[in-house]
């Protein structure tokens, strides 16, 4: 197994300058594949000198030592009887780390989820649960540019959180809601913690509950944890969290968690963004026109504001719009994210400047758009 893994890795170009612990572990595997066992040993010794709590590296070191005396049967060739789960967890981590490198998205590919970032959002985080990976993209003129990616630990029971205590990581589009400093946390959370906005409006509509989904670090006695070990949180190595932390903006930075990130290209993303932007613009201008029937064509029959269903919403809007002599709606600073796993489903957040002959109101608004019979419709709308 070890040889096989290392072989796969050998096909990958390894960034020469980047010497993250994971890169160095990869080099160790490469050395093993090339049968340069002394180099591998030296590499893993170096790595452990700097990261003595990197348990996976200890496992590899054990294999390297054992291999000097006998042929290895397997990766993580622990001889004595130990809880199998512990070895499996480390093997899973090794696989996740190596696979993330092997299945690295092409240089020019973009995550399909990020249609548009607003001007304030400097970065966006995407979690690919299948790869146990967190991808960081920077905002370059509204479009994402790849920055880095990191191994992450997710919920013990996997993904798609539905209720309190299910030890799953939610799937959806969230954002960072707070920055809890290290001084206020126990050692368990490591270098820091950033709660995210689970459950969001859509989760609540579907009756999903629970709370306290955070991005956080690891206890000081480990370098990393198994791929599936948290109570639903997204857990990074402390050094990785420290690198990511300065990029996070409370109330702004999106955190998109998907079972598997769909990689796309700039043209397709732009096409989808364009179609949504057009729908949004049409919605805006139809609202301004005070033609309530046309305005309401943008809403799905399944619409809910949380308080009002479609019928109640329609009636309310008819009443309000009828009394106006003029309406002006400004839409600015738009962010659009395709929701994971729900098909054509997009979260749109923007600043809305509403003015009429009787009212002036500026707010941050969030809408969930779904494509029904080829047309984009709003299924939820509310203050962000």
């Amino acid at each position: 197994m070890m040889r096989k893994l290392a072989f796969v890795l050998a096909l990958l170009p390894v960034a020469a300058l980047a010497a993250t612990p994971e890169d160095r572990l990869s080099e160790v595997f490469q050395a093993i594949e090339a049968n340069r066992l002394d180099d591998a040993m030296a590499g893993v010794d170096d790595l452990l000198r700097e990261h003595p709590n990197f348990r996976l590296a200890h496992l590899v070191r054990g294999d390297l030592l054992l291999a000097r005396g006998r042929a290895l049967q397997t990766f993580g060739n622990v001889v004595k009887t130990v809880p199998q789960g512990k070895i499996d967890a480390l093997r899973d981590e090794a696989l996740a780390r190596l696979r993330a490198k092997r299945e690295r998205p092409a240089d020019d590919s973009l995550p399909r989820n990020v249609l548009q970032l607003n001007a304030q959002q400097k970065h966006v985080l995407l979690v690919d649960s299948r790869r146990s990976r967190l991808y960081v993209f920077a905002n370059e003129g509204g479009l994402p540019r790849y920055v880095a990616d990191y191994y992450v630990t997710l919920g013990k029971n996997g993904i798609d959180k539905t209720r309190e205590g299910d030890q799953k990581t939610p799937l959806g589009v969230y954002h960072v809601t707070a920055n809890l400093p290290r001084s206020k946390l126990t050692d368990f959370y490591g270098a820091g913690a950033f709660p995210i906005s689970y459950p969001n409006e859509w989760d609540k509509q579907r009756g999903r509950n629970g709370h306290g989904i955070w991005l956080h670090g690891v206890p000081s006695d480990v370098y990393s944890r198994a791929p599936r070990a948290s109570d639903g949180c997204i857990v990074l190595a402390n050094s990785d969290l420290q690198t990511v932390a300065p990029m996070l903006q409370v109330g702004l930075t999106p955190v998109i968690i998907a079972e598997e990130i769909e990689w796309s290209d700039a043209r397709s993303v732009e096409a989808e963004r364009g179609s949504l932007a057009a729908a949004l613009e049409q919605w805006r201008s139809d609202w301004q026109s005070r033609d309530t029937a046309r305005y309401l064509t943008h809403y799905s029959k399944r619409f809910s504001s949380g308080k009002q269903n479609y019928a109640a919403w329609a009636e309310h809007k008819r009443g309000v719009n009828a009394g106006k002599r003029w309406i002006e709606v400004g839409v600015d600073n738009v962010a659009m994210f395709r929701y994971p796993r729900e098909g054509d489903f997009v979260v749109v957040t923007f600043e809305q400047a509403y003015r009429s002959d009787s009212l002036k109101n500026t707010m941050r608004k969030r809408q969930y758009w779904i494509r029904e019979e080829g047309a984009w419709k709003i299924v939820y709308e509310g203050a962000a």
Partner: protein
Amino acid sequence: MRVLATLLAVVLGIALPALADDLDEASRLLKAGQRDQALERVNRVLAQKSGDPKARFLKGIIFTEQGNTKDAIEIFTKLTQDYPNLPEPYNNLAVIYAGQGQYDKARAALEQSIRTHPSYATAYENLGDVYAKLASQAYDKALQLDKSNAGAQNKLSLVRELVGGPATAVAAAKEPAKPEPAKPAVAAVEKPAAEKPAATPAGDPGEVLKAVNAWAQAWSKKDADAYLASYDKDFKTPGGESRPDWEKARRERIAAPKSIAVAVEQAKVTMQGNDQASVAFRQSYRSDKLKSSSRKILVMTRADGRWLIREEKAAK
């Protein structure tokens, strides 16, 4: 090994004949377990020729066997400095370090030993064991397991016989004998004649193990006479009590339970010369009153062709 012997002859062939006799005698005394006397002889040699490498080497071994590891380390370390081309002092240093659980140091010393002498088989064998130990420690760290019975099973071999004529070989611990189930040992007891060939040329680990199994069998049968007969006349009683007191206590303990079953498991025999061996094993003891399992070491000695228990101790 022949390469080694020649080389040693060159390097060490400087001892004066009279002193060489003293050393041979010291070596013989050590083999017979008379460490204090052996030390006396060695010191006599060193008084006349303080730098003699053979004498110093032997002194290091005596210290090691006396459990005086600090002085043993000092002697072997000094030897590696004075005779950097000799692989044995490195090897013996490694064995001591390994015994202390310092496997990284042991590894360094053995690698040095091999660098000195690439064909030095004992160091390779020991190094294999040290790597296995280090691997085990690495796995423990990987899996966050408790460190358990570190150093309990050391099949590392200490090079004892640097001195002496053609037997410049090493008392390497060979593959541990396969633990035999306790029952077949009955046969061994029933035909003691087979054990008697006084002329058995070399110490046979299988014979040692048979004796241990016979001892366990006698105990299980509550046969106190046969049980006590397994012990050498110079047996070191555990609490230093007199032999009659100890025998009396043992008879009482053996008589008390209605039934006893003792099994010897995972036994490893380490030969130390032809007439000395130590056997490390897991002893599972079950009586109607008590059930226990513990690691034990029996130091065995051969007298008149019979392997007898010289020392009985709990393994750490």
